[in-house]
């Protein structure tokens, strides 16, 4: 093509440049609109979906509440052994996660909750089931159970498939499999219970039974028995937030079912991963020294 003037040349060049930028912009938009497939990429508004059309809960999530200290509203506290721990051991205040800020205990169960609180630091290791008579199971690095695992101050990761959803908690590497298809009957009593799930629209509903009655809801002594039945609802509201709600039912402990709810936040740091929190070695001196069974290793 014969260029008549410099002005035309510039015009042609800028049209070409604009066209290239438009193509590039379209490509970028295509990338942004593509469904998110791996954790660690920047999310966008609108929850991503898996190949079977369900909202994708894949990724690393964490609650930001103080519910692990007390699921009811509470003020800040010095915590255990302030003479040694100072601020390291202090507990912040929080507004609680329980609907109505009340747990409907039966009178004898409320007395047990108070007893739990008074004995929460008691460590009485035995070689029989009496080792569970008192003391917060979290203190001894026991599995936290459900729903407590979801509001521990640690992240957890969800791996979602149509047949099974696997949840791995950084705390102690505790795991639970949510059986989606087929459902499976609880074979025995477990610390983390036994979970069967289904989708109701865009909400993951998980029915948890098969608890062993040894888990607490928090460090304040709130507890349930092995008759505990938890129904969880995970509802994504955008790519980075899931609203979590759990209905708690235990006719031996409570006069009626009650609910808790809080948001789960997606951990967004690039290359974020769970870091091992294997707390068994951290509690061996506490648990076994009183029995004369602990000797620190010499290195």
């Amino acid at each position, binding site marked *: 093509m014969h260029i008549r003037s410099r002005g035309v040349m510039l015009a042609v060049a800028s049209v070409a440049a604009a066209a290239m930028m438009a193509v590039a912009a379209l490509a970028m938009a295509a990338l942004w609109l593509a469904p998110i497939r791996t954790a660690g990429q920047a999310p966008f508004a609108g929850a991503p979906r898996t190949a079977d059309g369900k909202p994708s809960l894949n990724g690393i999530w964490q609650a930001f509440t103080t519910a692990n200290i007390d699921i009811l509203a509470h003020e800040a506290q010095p915590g255990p052994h302030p003479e040694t721990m100072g601020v390291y051991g202090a507990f912040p205040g929080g507004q609680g996660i329980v609907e109505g800020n009340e747990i409907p205990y039966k009178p004898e169960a409320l007395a047990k909750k108070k007893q739990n609180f008074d004995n929460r630091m008691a460590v009485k290791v035995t070689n029989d089931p009496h080792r569970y008579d008192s003391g917060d199971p979290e203190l001894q690095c*026991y*599995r936290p159970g459900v729903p407590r695992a979801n509001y521990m101050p640690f992240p957890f990761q969800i791996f979602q498939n149509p047949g099974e959803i696997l949840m791995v908690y950084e705390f102690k590497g505790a795991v639970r499999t949510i059986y989606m298809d087929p459902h499976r009957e609880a074979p025995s009593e*477990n610390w983390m219970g036994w979970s069967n799930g289904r989708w109701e629209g865009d909400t993951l509903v998980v029915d948890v039974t098969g608890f062993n009655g040894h888990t607490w809801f928090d460090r304040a002594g709130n507890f349930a028995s092995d008759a505990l039945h938890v129904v969880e609802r995970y509802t994504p509201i955008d790519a980075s937030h899931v609203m979590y709600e759990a209905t708690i039912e235990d006719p031996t402990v409570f006069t009626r079912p009650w609910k808790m709810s809080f948001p789960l936040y997606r951990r967004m740091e690039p290359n974020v991963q*769970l870091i091992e929190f294997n707390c068994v070695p951290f509690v061996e001196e506490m648990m076994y020294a009183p029995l004369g069974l602990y000797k*620190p290793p010499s290195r």
Partner: protein
Amino acid sequence: MRARVLVPLAAVTFVMVWAPVLVAQAPSGTKSFDPTTIDPDAAIKAAAEAAKAAAATTNWTPPRTSWGHPDLQGYWLLATYTPLERPAALKDKAFYTEEEAIAAFRKAVESDAEVDPRTVHYDWKEYGMDAWQAGAKPNLRTSLIVDPPDGRIPPLTPEAQKRRAAAAAAARARNPAAGVQTFGNLYTRCVLGLGATPLVRGGNPGAESAAAAGGVTAESQIVQTPGYMVIVTQSNNDVRIIPLDGRPHLPDNVRQWLGDARGHWEGDTLVVETTNFNNKSPATNFQGSTDALRLVERFTRVSPNTLRYEYTATDPMTWTRPWSIETPLPRIDPPLYEFACHEQNYGLINVVKGTQIREVEAAKQSQSRPANPGSRADER
């Protein structure tokens, strides 16, 4: 004995004598049991047939997940009777014939099912937890180790020999104040299970209790998502989360019991590289290695119900050269169960107390006896 038509198993020429297979009469109100879980002969026959079917599958392409990765998902058995190292008597023999493989398998199963009444033992068979009851299969290989070609762990470096001698000397020194950490191995303490990194340790039931116990609770669960492979083991419910997006390892100063794993696909094989192991002292690291261990595992689904598992272990501070294993993992039925080891570790108290008592006895004995070569104090 019932007269039966012997089903000809192609190329297998030995004759199996059929005793009547009894289905156990379970207590009333419960279901009856699968014969392969209560009768070693039935288990051996079923295992041989399954192994044959798996071996006959060639040029098989695994199905894909919905996002296009080879599908390795499901539940897989980690227990095997194949020893890690080739028995010395077999010298350079890397493979059995089919007949020999079945015979070796039979011998291992029968020895596993028997229990020496003179020992203090756990009869895993009564709980359906022997490896042959869980679905362990025969293997044509005489050892898990395929490289070096002699099927044995390579020689130790001089540094590793010194470490081992020092550990042996420390073990000989009597320690009446033995405690949980100085006594207990990581499994007894419920810190780690019997095999997560790597997954398979090799079988030699009857050789030592830890190896025999490695045949039990040997199930694993593999889950895949577009960005991850996850392995959960039945033993201690150890979990390995393996990112596949090419991210770098954790920084060098962050060390983990199970190391830090990164995976990528090479064709239909998932290659997993694990580094950042911690120093497990006073317990020992894997096969006496150091925290510099680098483990490269390979997962390939070679037939509908078989996963080929390989690993190469490299630690220049321990072995003069890397070494590699290969073993088939058979598919098993779900589910995995919760393994709340530490929560219910009643036994640890008794085990440690017992050790303390033995140590005190041994200390008294070596005091009352003059030390001379061959005395108890000099024994390993």
